[in-house]
C-alpha cells in the first residue's frame, strides 16, 4: 500500500508540476493572468446553474438542479477522460520506467488514474460543484446537503473514469495487435464517442406531450426518474443530497463496487492490454521493403508535411484534431438521426433569416474550436530543436507552422461547406459570403494562436494529451474566441436594424483588420521571441 501511495504521489506531483510549469511563463503578468483564466469559467457556470435552479424551483423541484448538472458533468467527464486515459496508459513516456518497478500492477493502474481523477475533479467542480453550493445555500442553509454534496463531488469522477477504463483498455488491446494500429485507435474512438452521444440523445428525447408530462408529474419522483434515465446513479445521488442516507449509502457502495471491480481486473488489464500494446512495435510492418528514393522537394512543402505528419502519427493528436474539426458534423448527424433537427426546421420562418449565420457557424467551426496553431510548437516536444538548427529564418519557421494549420482547417471547412451547403440548400450568394468570412476569420485565428504558443512553448510533456488538451494554451485560445463572440454579440444587439448580409460584411472587414494586426504582431515582434525559446 505504501508503494502505491508513493507512486501516486509521484504521478500527481508530476502532473501538478507540469501545470505550474505551464503557468510559469516568462512574462510575469501573462503568467498571473493565465492562472485566472480557468477561474473565469466559474462565473458563467454559476450563472447557468442559477438559472437552472430558478427553473426547477418554480415547478417545485429545486433538487433536480443537482440531478441535471450531475448528468451533464458526467457526460463531460466521459468525453474528457477517453483521450486522457488512452494517453496516460498507452502513449505516456514513463510507462517503460513504471513497468520495471517492483510494485503490484494495481499500483500502476491506480496511480495513473489518480492524475485523471484530479483533472476530472476540477472539471466536476465547475458545474456539479457549483450546483451543490447553489442548492445547499440558496433558500435555507442546509449543512447536511452541503456535506453530502461535497462527498458526492469528491466521488463523482470515479464512475465515468472507471467505466471508461474498463471499456477503453480492452478495446485498445484489441486494436493494438492490428497492422494499422494508430488508425484503428482513432476510428474506434470516433465511433465510440458517436455511439455514446447517440445514446444520450435517444434517451434524452422524452416524448414530452402534455398528457405524458402530467402522468410523470403525478408519480412520486416521476420527474427525477425521467431525468435520471440518462444516468441512473444520478437518482441516488440526488436523494442522497436531499437527505436520504439509504440512497447515499447505495451511491457510495456503487462507486466502491466499481473500484473493487477495477482492482479485480487490473492484473488482466495490465498483462493482456497494457503490456501487450506497449510490446507491439509501431503496429506497422517494420521489415517492409520500401525503396530508397531520392526526391527533391521545396523547403516549404517539407516543413508543412512535417507539421502535418506530427499530427497524423500521434493518435492522441489525431483524435483531438479530427474530433475538433468534425465535431459540428458529428453533432449535426446525430441530431438528424435522432430527429432533433430536420431540413424543414432550418427553413422554418423563425430560423430562415438566420440561415447565413448558421451556415457560417458550421463552416467556421473548425477554425473557431480548433486551435492547432496554439500547440504547434508544443506538439514537436523534444524534437523542436530540429528546425532550430536548419538554415531557415524564424519567419519562415513560423510561416509554415501557420500554413499547416490553415491547410488542415481549410480542408475541414471545405468539407463542411459542401455537406452543409447541400443539406441546407443555401444559395450561392450565401456560400460565397460565408466562405469569404470563414477564410478571413481562419487566417486571423491561426495566426494569433501562434503567439500563445511562443509565449508558452511547453516542450517537456510526458503524455500527449498534456500537449494538446490539458494545456492552458488551448484555454487561452478558446478565450480569445469567446471574447470575440461575446463582443460581437453585444455590438450586434446595439444595431438591430442591420441585415445579416451587412453584419457579415462588417465582421469580415473587422477580421481582415485583425488579421493585418496579428500578422504584424507575429512577424514583426514574435519572430524575435521565437528565437529566444530555451530548449
Amino acid at each position, binding site marked *: 500500500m505504501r508503494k502505491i501511495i508513493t507512486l501516486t504521489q509521484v504521478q500527481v506531483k508530476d502532473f501538478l508540476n507540469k501545470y505550474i510549469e505551464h503557468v510559469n511563463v516568462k512574462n510575469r503578468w501573462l503568467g498571473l493572468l493565465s492562472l485566472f483564466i480557468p477561474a473565469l469559467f466559474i462565473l458563467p457556470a454559476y450563472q447557468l446553474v442559477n438559472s437552472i435552479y430558478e427553473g426547477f424551483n418554480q415547478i417545485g423541484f429545486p433538487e433536480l438542479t443537482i440531478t441535471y448538472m450531475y448528468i451533464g458533468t458526467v457526460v463531460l467527464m466521459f468525453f474528457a477522460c477517453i483521450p486522457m486515459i488512452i494517453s496516460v496508459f498507452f502513449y505516456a513516456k514513463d510507462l517503460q520506467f513504471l513497468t520495471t518497478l517492483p510494485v503490484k500492477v494495481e499500483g500502476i493502474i491506480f496511480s495513473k488514474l489518480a492524475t485523471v481523477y484530479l483533472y476530472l475533479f476540477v472539471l466536476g467542480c465547475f458545474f456539479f460543484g457549483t450546483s451543490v453550493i447553489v442548492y445547499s445555500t440558496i433558500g435555507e442553509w442546509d449543512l447536511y446537503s452541503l456535506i453530502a454534496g461535497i462527498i458526492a463531488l469528491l466521488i463523482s469522477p470515479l464512475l465515468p473514469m472507471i467505466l471508461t477504463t474498463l471499456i477503453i483498455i480492452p478495446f485498445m488491446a484489441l486494436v493494438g495487435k492490428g497492422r494499422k494500429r494508430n488508425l484503428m485507435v482513432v476510428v474506434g474512438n470516433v465511433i465510440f464517442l458517436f455511439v455514446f452521444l447517440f445514446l444520450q440523445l435517444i434517451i434524452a428525447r422524452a416524448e414530452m406531450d402534455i398528457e405524458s408530462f402530467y402522468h410523470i408529474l403525478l408519480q412520486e419522483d416521476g420527474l427525477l426518474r425521467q431525468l435520471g434515465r440518462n444516468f441512473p446513479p444520478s437518482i441516488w445521488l440526488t436523494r442522497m443530497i436531499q437527505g436520504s442516507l439509504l440512497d447515499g449509502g447505495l451511491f457510495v457502495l456503487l462507486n466502491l463496487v466499481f473500484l473493487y471491480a477495477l482492482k479485480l481486473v487490473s492484473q488482466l488489464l495490465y498483462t493482456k492490454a497494457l503490456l501487450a500494446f506497449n510490446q507491439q512495435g509501431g503496429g506497422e510492418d*517494420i521489415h517492409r*521493403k520500401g525503396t530508397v528514393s531520392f526526391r527533391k522537394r521545396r523547403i516549404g512543402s517539407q516543413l508543412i508535411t512535417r507539421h502535418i505528419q*506530427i499530427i497524423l502519427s500521434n493518435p492522441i493528436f489525431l483524435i483531438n484534431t479530427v474530433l475538433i474539426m468534425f465535431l459540428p458534423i458529428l453533432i449535426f448527424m446525430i441530431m438528424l438521426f435522432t430527429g432533433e433537427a430536420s431540413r424543414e426546421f432550418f427553413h422554418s420562418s423563425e430560423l430562415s433569416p438566420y440561415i447565413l449565420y448558421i451556415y457560417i457557424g458550421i463552416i467556421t467551426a473548425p477554425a473557431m474550436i480548433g486551435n492547432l496553431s496554439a500547440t504547434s510548437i508544443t506538439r514537436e516536444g523534444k524534437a523542436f530543436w530540429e528546425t*532550430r*538548427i536548419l*538554415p*531557415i529564418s524564424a519567419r519562415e519557421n513560423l510561416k509554415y507552422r501557420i500554413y499547416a494549420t490553415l491547410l488542415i482547417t481549410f480542408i475541414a471547412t471545405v468539407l463542411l461547406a459542401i455537406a452543409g451547403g447541400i443539406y441546407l440548400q443555401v444559395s450561392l450568394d450565401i456560400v460565397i459570403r460565408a466562405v469569404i468570412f470563414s477564410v478571413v476569420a481562419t487566417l486571423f485565428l491561426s495566426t494569433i494562436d501562434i503567439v500563445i504558443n511562443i509565449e508558452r512553448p511547453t516542450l517537456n510533456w510526458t503524455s500527449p494529451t498534456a500537449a494538446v488538451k490539458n494545456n492552458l494554451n488551448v484555454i487561452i485560445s478558446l478565450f480569445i474566441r469567446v471574447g470575440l463572440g461575446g463582443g460581437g454579440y453585444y455590438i450586434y444587439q446595439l444595431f438591430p436594424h442591420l441585415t445579416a448580409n451587412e453584419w457579415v460584411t462588417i465582421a469580415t472587414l473587422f477580421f481582415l483588420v485583425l488579421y493585418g494586426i496579428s500578422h504584424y504582431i507575429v512577424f514583426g515582434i514574435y519572430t524575435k521571441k521565437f528565437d529566444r525559446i530555451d*530548449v
Partner: protein
Amino acid sequence: MLALKNVSKTYDRSKRAVNQISLDVEKGEIIGFIGPNGAGKTTTLKMITGIIQPTEGTISIDGVDIMKAPVDAKKNFSYVPDQPTIFDAISGIDYLNFMADMYDVSIRERKKRIEKFSKAFQIDDALTQKVNSYSHGMRQKLLITGAMLSNPKLFILDEPMVGLDPHSARVLKDLMREHCNKGGTVFFSSHGLEVVEDLCDRVAIIHKGKLIACDVVGNIKKSTDTTLENVFLEMTRDA
C-alpha cells in the same frame, strides 16, 4: 572558422551555466571539448548552433554572426546533438531527404553521400524503416549521416561516440579526420579522453562554465610521461 567572444549563458536568470568563454577554432582543425558533467559543454554547443541564445557575447561562424544573420550562419555548419530525439514517425530515408532539401543538396550529391555513409555505418538496410524502430546507435548514425549531407564547413557533435559500437566509432573517427583533411572543421564534445587525445589537434577544457585551457594536447600535458586523463583530473579537481 568559429569564434566565440565572451560568451555567457544564464538559465532562469540565476544559473550561470557558461561564463565568459572566448575561443577561436581555425579552419581544418579538429577540436575536442572536454569537461566534467554539468560543466557547460552542451550549453555552449547549443549556443553555437543557435538552439539557444547566449545571454551575452557574440558567436560567429566563418565570419557570420549567428544572432545577426542566422540563416547564412546556419548554412555553414551542421550539428549532431547528444540525444538523437528527432521526429521519428518517418522513415530514415525520408529524414535524410528532408535534411538534404533543407540544405539544398542536389539529387546526385545526396545519392552519393547517403549511399556512402549509410553503407559505412551499416544502416543502409534500415533506411526504409521508420526511425522509431531504430536503436539508439542507429538513430545517432542516421543523424550523423544527415548532418554530413551538406558537406558542412563546420561539423559540430555533442558526445558522438556514446552508444556507438566499436566499428561505428572507428568509422566516425575516420570520417572526422577525412573531413578535416578536405578542409572542413570539426568541433566535438566528449568524455572519451583517449579518443580526444589521438584525434584532436587541440583540446578545450571547460570547468564550471569557464574555459580553463585550450591548447594542443602536448602543451596541456606539459610533460610526456603523464596522460591527458591525469592532467584532466588534476585540473578539474574541486579545491
